[in-house]
């Protein structure tokens, strides 16, 4: 087996992370033909046979105190995985296994999972993987609890949040929530996002007979998947027979060339996530250089480069795992270079600083040498290196977080290393004629640990929001009663354009993860998890609905607004 990936492959949103039958068939065809084989897939083929998110029917029951405090949850999840169970399915059911209680402190959980195959598009990796399916019932439940107990939905959320003092917090299903002050984060969001103003708008709109609603959603955003979580689908006996699966091995290599230039190589297969920008910054920070001094290689060849089966760009693992591993490699190299510099500058290694492209004695900054000269030493004069230093040319780090252990006998698993916190709220207004949903304001508060690069984080949040607005209001893999596929073109499968996507108000709080080298958590998928149900809650609030299915199309909502249509009046026979 050998896989080579380009440094950029264009957008993926999860789809490119899986292996498809055609990929294997292409390789086999190339062997037979003795020449390269090209695969062309058109839109219809892609939509009907590549990847859909799973279609889940969840029955969620809760035991709730009068004050809204949830004692226990019982999930019955029926997962439609489409026509074939393709790897890594049914992982959609298990990615959220550890954090199925979301941001809440709920100690008793029962889960019953079933998978069915149908004749629909096979399911697979898709941004938010498992998140929208898990949080939709949970956050709809929070609203229903508030309505049934005549409580404020915010009170129900707040009474159940995991307290900051409990961090790191082990959930009932095995996740270790790493850090965060959920209650304080929520309070900041309400204040800075202007909830009071939205409540006033809702009052004013309702007084005029308009349909205005407010929705909330609180979720934890898992990142850096545990390779072992999918084995929670097996029985403990089956797991014992199959052998252990756990961890999330990341790799990074930092190299110095004979001119002292720095390069970094990672096995992460980016599709436009800004690896070059962020890695150059991370390595430059570690070595006292400028980002433009660092060359980044993100293409991989599995026959040549450091990688592991956990490599790749999924589960929002770049910032917490890949960038952190790259930093470790740079720091290891820096420590060895510091010891080499100490011999040349006649100071102790602890006195060496790397700054502004030079390596200097902290006690006497004039006593310094250029970084490039020090970095080149391993090439030109390896004999001058102290023997215990080994080489100073290249450092590869393999890192797997010890927190990612295999599932327990009780099927508990820490399915992800990091858990960011998201709290969203929004105001929507429904047009009384068309039933169209207008987002009046969308506020999304993120705690993704340390932010490595604000513009990249903004890009992930805005992009995820735009993508999932499609899921909430427009996009649907639709099938006729006879099973035929109805959404095979972009005239049928409606992706929102810039005209349909308002800009959300994005807020931040930073609670560093204690488990990652840079304190960062993943941020790429959160809105795919929080936004659909936040919008659904707002629409339900606007129209006083018990149940709502997405996408909330104008025709669906208009049927509620317009009420039942009177039968056709008999034609009058005035002239008869």
């Amino acid at each position: 087996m050998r896989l080579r990936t380009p440094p950029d492959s264009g957008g993926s949103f999860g789809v490119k992370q899986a292996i498809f039958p055609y990929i294997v068939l292409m390789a086999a065809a190339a062997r037979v033909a003795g020449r390269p084989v090209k695969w062309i897939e058109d839109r219809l083929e892609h939509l009907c046979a590549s990847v859909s998110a799973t279609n889940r029917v969840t029955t969620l029951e809760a035991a709730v105190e009068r004050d809204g405090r949830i004692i226990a949850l019982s999930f019955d999840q029926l997962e439609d995985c489409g026509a074939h169970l393709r790897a890594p399915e049914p992982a959609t059911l298990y990615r959220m296994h550890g954090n199925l209680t979301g941001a809440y402190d709920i100690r008793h959980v029962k889960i019953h999972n079933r998978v069915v195959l149908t004749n629909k598009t096979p399911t697979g990796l898709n941004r938010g993987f498992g998140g929208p399916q898990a949080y939709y019932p949970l956050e709809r439940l929070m609203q229903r609890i508030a309505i049934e107990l005549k409580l404020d939905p915010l009170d129900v959320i707040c009474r159940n949040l995991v307290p900051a003092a409990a961090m790191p917090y082990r959930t009932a299903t095995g996740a270790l929530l790493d850090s965060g002050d959920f209650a304080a984060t929520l309070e900041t969001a309400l204040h800075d996002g202007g909830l009071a103003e939205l409540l006033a708008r809702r009052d004013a709109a309702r007084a005029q007979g308009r349909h205005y609603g407010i929705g909330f959603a609180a979720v934890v955003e898992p990142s850096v998947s545990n390779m072992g979580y999918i084995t929670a689908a097996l029985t403990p006996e089956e797991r014992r027979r199959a052998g252990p699966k756990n961890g999330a091995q990341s790799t990074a290599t930092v190299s110095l060339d004979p001119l002292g230039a720095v390069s970094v190589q990672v096995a992460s297969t980016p599709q436009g996530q800004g690896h070059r920008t962020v890695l150059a910054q991370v390595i430059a920070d570690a070595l006292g250089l400028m980002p433009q001094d660092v060359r980044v290689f993100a293409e991989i060849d599995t026959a040549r480069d450091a990688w592991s089966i956990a490599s790749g760009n999924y589960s929002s693992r770049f910032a917490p795992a890949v960038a952190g591993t790259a930093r470790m490699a740079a720091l290891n190299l820096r420590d060895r270079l510091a010891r080499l510099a100490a011999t040349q500058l006649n100071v102790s290694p602890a006195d060496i600083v790397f700054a502004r492209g030079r390596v200097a004695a902290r006690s006497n900054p004039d006593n310094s040498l250029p970084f490039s000269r020090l970095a080149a030493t391993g090439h030109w004069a390896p004999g001058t290196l102290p023997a215990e230093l080994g080489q100073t040319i290249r450092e590869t780090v393999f890192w797997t977080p010890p927190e990612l252990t295999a599932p327990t006998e009780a099927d508990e698993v820490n399915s992800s290393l990091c858990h960011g916190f998201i709290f969203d709220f929004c105001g929507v207004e429904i047009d009384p004629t068309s039933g169209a949903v207008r987002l009046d304001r969308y506020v999304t508060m993120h705690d993704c640990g340390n932010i490595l690069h604000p513009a990249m984080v903004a890009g992930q949040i805005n992009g995820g929001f735009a993508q999932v607005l499609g899921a909430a209001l427009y996009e649907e893999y639709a099938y006729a009663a006879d099973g035929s596929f109805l959404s095979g073109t972009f005239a049928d499968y409606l992706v929102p354009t810039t005209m349909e996507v308002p800009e959300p108000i994005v807020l931040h709080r930073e609670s560093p993860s204690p488990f990652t080298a840079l304190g960062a958590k993943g941020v790429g998928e959160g809105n795919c998890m929080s936004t659909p149900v936040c919008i659904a809650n707002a629409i339900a609030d606007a129209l006083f609905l018990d149940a709502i299915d997405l996408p909330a199309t104008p025709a669906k909502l208009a049927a509620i607004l317009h009420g039942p249509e009177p039968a056709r009046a008999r034609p009058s026979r005035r002239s008869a």
Partner: protein
Amino acid sequence: MKPAAFDYVRAESIEEALDVLVQEGADARVLAGGQTLIPMLSMRMARPSVIVDIMRLSELNRIESAEAAIRVGAAVRQRDVEHCPDLVSNQPLLAAALPWIGHAQTRSRGTVCGSVAHADPSAELPLVLIALNGEIELRSRRRSRRVAAESFFTGIMSTDCQPDEMIEAVRFPAAHAGTGYAFREISRRHGDFAIVACAAVVDARTARLAIGGVADRPTARDLPVPDDPGLDDALDAFAWDLEARDDLHATAEYRRQLVRRLGRQTLKEAARCRG
């Protein structure tokens, strides 16, 4: 190439284009802005043997505004009409409908007559022609004729244009003083095909409402004026008579409801605009 193979003729004169139509009959298609035909070729929903490109014919690239009507030639792009000086006063309904057609990019390529020739039941320009009682000028080697919009559109993407004929121009009657015009549309996204589009023409005594996106062709009906108590029943009957159907984006019931509600709003707006 995604389309099936075809021959391409760039006509140097109208006669040359018409000769191809005579020789090839239904196997030939006229290419103007290509905003519909090219995707149809790529999806192989259309498989003509010959494409006749008329966009180099300068005599077809003319907009003539006369007192009675605005005459738009077959090679005139939608964007050129949209940017016509005085369009809003010459024909406010056309001015109101044009921005709803696709996107600025597609209007920069797409032609007015091309949209009329394609005759999509939800298209804006056929709807405007129907609402205004406009006319289509057809030309072949045999004859030239003018057809009223009401009889030109015969069903889903079908018209009275014969295989040897092409549209030479369409005529939008100019606005009358004392008449109000309004256009409204509901679609899923900006630029999408209309689920329901309404064009209203209202004067002191008469009201005319044309509906697109519901029946198999744009359809107009004379209705009671907006403040007449009989309007609701008339709109209800109109909504049922259009025989709406379900599709992926909307149910038949949703369309009927929009005909009633949006139809009334459009008529009222036209009455307000009567000036």
